[in-house]
């Protein structure tokens, strides 16, 4: 990774030359495995929900584009998910609170502007400022001075965060409000991408055709229908595009995209309609992808309601968890596109990153007899009945009904658990945020970065930004602080796992299953795989001749 710009540029030229020879040589009757360096990949896309600004994009469709046209200080290895330096030369700290970031020289935006300390400082200050209404503003909450630019109410008292200081052109320091040993590993997330001066001088023009420092440049963008990305000519990183470009095509419906893949009009999809999951492996003759992703689905309880926070209710929650037949539901309802959960994180973290097959243990294992006993010991379901709330505009009804069915069978009562559909996702989320839930409700978490911290801190610490259950446990908070102050990541992971063991006892949210990333591709392309964020690794796709 530690190559200077000069060396990597030369290496790049060599790579291009090699590819060209390989191509002309391939014409002489090779086995057909040759690839066209200029070939364009046609890929599925959904209309991004928000403007394509790094700090304003929090969903996968917009994120796809940002990950192609930008490179951050760190990048998550598409195979292992580990955070590696990309634009950063080094990120160091002696006290886990003040970090010194050194940037590799020679990185350029596609318009020729250099990537320097200001590119990051300005972008981060822009993302945090409350008046810019960036959806990812809270990602900067750890930086000292965030409270001044992003007060909970009223106008900001500063426009820049005092925790960001430029040292020289390629060095800056970040001071946090508390110790956070894993902070450098979070910097691969799109909210932390740098922005060129062109963004600040004419935001409207930039938004029409965003300019970044990644392996692709946007050559044309018709909002709502198509974006053409082409290989960047002045990209300085090691992860160069191995194809000529990617055309992202907006589809109105996943079924339509799937049909187009079969008809040969599309090369890569990262969504398979639920109804097609069973026959996709044979339909696509093996060009079907089904692999773990950093998404966990859970069932949360409103711990702010008196009847769900008693010691008896604790036993009931454990009992409910044991009453859910996870393997059967993941197989029958999801055709194995989900994996039964054994902890509160995700398999993509790996054992080293904190994933565990045993932390939930007994409490996540189907055991009808013990489940019934526990629920009865706890005084039965509060009010004699429970509901599972979900948003009706998503694909949730079938599994909610199956979970209820599983619980009802265990309790021998057909009305013990019923699904409670709420019209829209927006309404559902408002009710959750406004603490209006009276019984169990579905919660899901897609990681922002592959760290155990991201699966636990926002969801289960007392002031966690997404603590929908309003779980509060002093011991958990203490271990979380201890983990953040840990001198190295192994110590941090171990503290986080200690904290996780509290969840296995308290059960504020029942882990259901890990969501897999599913996708498919045409015979025209090869080298397609999805990263741990369920997004295709576009730059590695090759187009066959």
């Amino acid at each position, binding site marked *: 990774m530690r190559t200077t710009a000069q060396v990597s540029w030369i290496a790049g030229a060599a790579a291009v030359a090699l590819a060209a020879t390989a191509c002309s040589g391939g014409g002489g009757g090779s086995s057909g495995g040759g690839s066209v360096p200029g070939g364009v990949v046609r890929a599925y896309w959904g*209309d*991004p*929900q*928000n*403007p394509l600004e790094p700090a304003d994009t*929090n*969903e996968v469709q917009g994120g796809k584009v940002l990950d192609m046209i930008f490179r951050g200080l760190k990048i998550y290895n598409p195979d292992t998910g580990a955070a590696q330096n990309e634009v950063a030369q080094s990120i160091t700290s002696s006290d886990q609170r003040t970090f010194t970031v050194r940037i590799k020289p020679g990185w350029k935006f596609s318009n020729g502007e250099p990537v320097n300390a200001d590119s990051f400082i300005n972008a981060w200050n822009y993302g945090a400022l*409350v*008046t810019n*209404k*960036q*959806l990812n*503003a*809270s990602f900067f909450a750890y930086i000292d001075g965030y409270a001044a630019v*992003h*007060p*909970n*109410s009223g106008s900001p008292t500063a426009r820049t965060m005092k925790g960001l200081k430029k040292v020289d052109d390629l060095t800056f320091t970040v001071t946090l409000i508390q110790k956070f040993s894993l902070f450098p590993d979070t910097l691969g997330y799109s909210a932390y991408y740098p922005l060129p001066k062109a963004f600040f001088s004419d935001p409207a023009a930039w*938004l029409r055709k965003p300019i970044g420092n990644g392996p692709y440049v946007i050559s044309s963008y*018709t*909002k*709502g*229908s*198509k974006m053409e990305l082409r290989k960047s000519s002045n990209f300085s990183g090691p992860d160069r595009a191995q194809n000529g470009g990617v055309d992202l*095509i*907006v*589809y*109105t*419906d996943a*079924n*339509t*995209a799937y*049909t*187009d893949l*079969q*008809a040969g*009009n599309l090369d890569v999809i990262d969504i398979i309609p639920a109804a097609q999951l069973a026959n996709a492996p044979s339909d696509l003759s093996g060009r079907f992808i089904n692999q773990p992703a950093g998404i966990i689905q859970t069932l949360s309880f409103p711990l702010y309601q008196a009847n769900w926070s008693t010691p008896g209710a604790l036993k009931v929650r454990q009992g409910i968890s044991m009453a859910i037949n996870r393997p059967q539901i993941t197989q029958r309802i999801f055709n194995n596109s989900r994996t039964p959960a054994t902890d509160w994180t995700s398999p993509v973290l790996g054992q080293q990153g904190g994933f565990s097959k045993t932390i939930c243990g007994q409490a996540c294992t189907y055991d009808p007899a013990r489940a019934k006993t526990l629920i009865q010991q706890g005084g039965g379901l509060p009010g004699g009945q429970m509901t599972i709330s979900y948003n009706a*505009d998503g694909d949730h009804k079938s599994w909610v009904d199956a979970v209820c069915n599983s619980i009802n069978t265990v309790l021998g009562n057909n009305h013990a658990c019923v699904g409670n559909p709420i*019209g*829209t*996702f*927006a*309404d559902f*989320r*408002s009710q*959750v*945020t406004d603490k209006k839930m009276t019984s169990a409700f579905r*919660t*899901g*978490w*897609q990681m922002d970065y592959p760290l155990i911290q991201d699966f636990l801190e*926002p969801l289960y610490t007392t002031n966690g*930004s*997404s*603590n*929908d259950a309003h779980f509060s446990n002093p011991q958990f908070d203490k271990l979380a602080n201890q983990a953040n102050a840990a001198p190295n990541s192994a110590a941090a992971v171990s503290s986080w796992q200690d904290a996780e063991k509290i969840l296995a006892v308290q059960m504020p949210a029942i882990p259901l299953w890990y969501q897999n990333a599913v996708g498919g591709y045409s015979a025209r392309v090869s080298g397609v795989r999805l990263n741990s964020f369920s997004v295709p690794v576009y730059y590695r796709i090759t187009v066959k001749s």
Partner: protein
Amino acid sequence: MGRYVIRRLLQMIPVFIGTTLLIFIMVYALGDPVSALFGDRAPDPATAAQIRHDLHLDEPLWKQYLLYMAGIFTGNFGTAFNGQPVTELMRTAFPITVRLTIVAILIEAVFGVLLGVVSGLRRRGWVDTAVLVLTLVVVSVPTFVTGYLLQLLLGVRWGVAPATVSAEAPFNELIVPGLVLAAVSLAYVTRLTRTTVAENARADYVRTAVAKGLPRHRVVGRHLLRNSLIPVVTFLGTDIGALMGGALVTERIFNIHGVGYQLYQGILRQNSPTVVGFVTILVIIFLIANLLVDLLYAVLDPRIRYA
């Protein structure tokens, strides 16, 4: 005639205000759209408050409606959540849907009237029976079934037509979707034409025309058809509005980024400016189509006069 048109146009104003208000209230009743922007993550209160303030969501409903209406009269239909002005969405969506509607209406009118006249003139013959059975089948099969079936057969298996429509949506790619969209209405038009033609074939003026010794094509084309078309034209007129707003299913199947798709997405994301804006335009189209139908009556039947 002129006074009649002006009166009708004036009548549109209360209808217009009433429908926009109703839609506005309905979209508002769905709840707060801002929390959905944050996905499964709890919204950051300060950012959410800022967004609500900028979209006037922190104002009472009546004030939001007034602000919205004030915007409309200056040509500002608001902004979708992805930062695109709604007028820009309309500029791309409406031409596509209009093209799709034209294809569908043409198929409906030409084949529907043709089949209707043939079966109406040969009642109880084998042609008539075949058409009746066929239309019955078409009416009873839902659009998404015909849509997916035709797409799979023509687009994927046989490869004779494009499976999906490209972003530019030229006419030739819209033939199969147009056919799917027109299918149900085609059946209605056929049956409607058949009934009125069969009825009018025994009318006095047709007998007179035949007795005068007029050639058959003139009897059918000029005397019989013109009088029989009034209910059909009424149906086609209201169908224009229905096709434009109701092409949602067809548009999703064939990946057409038209009005139906934009409405669907607007509702899903609870984006009131998109939904209210598009519905407002659809209401206007409905009203104008109805007015044109009423004026066409006078052309088809000279006995009808508007004062």
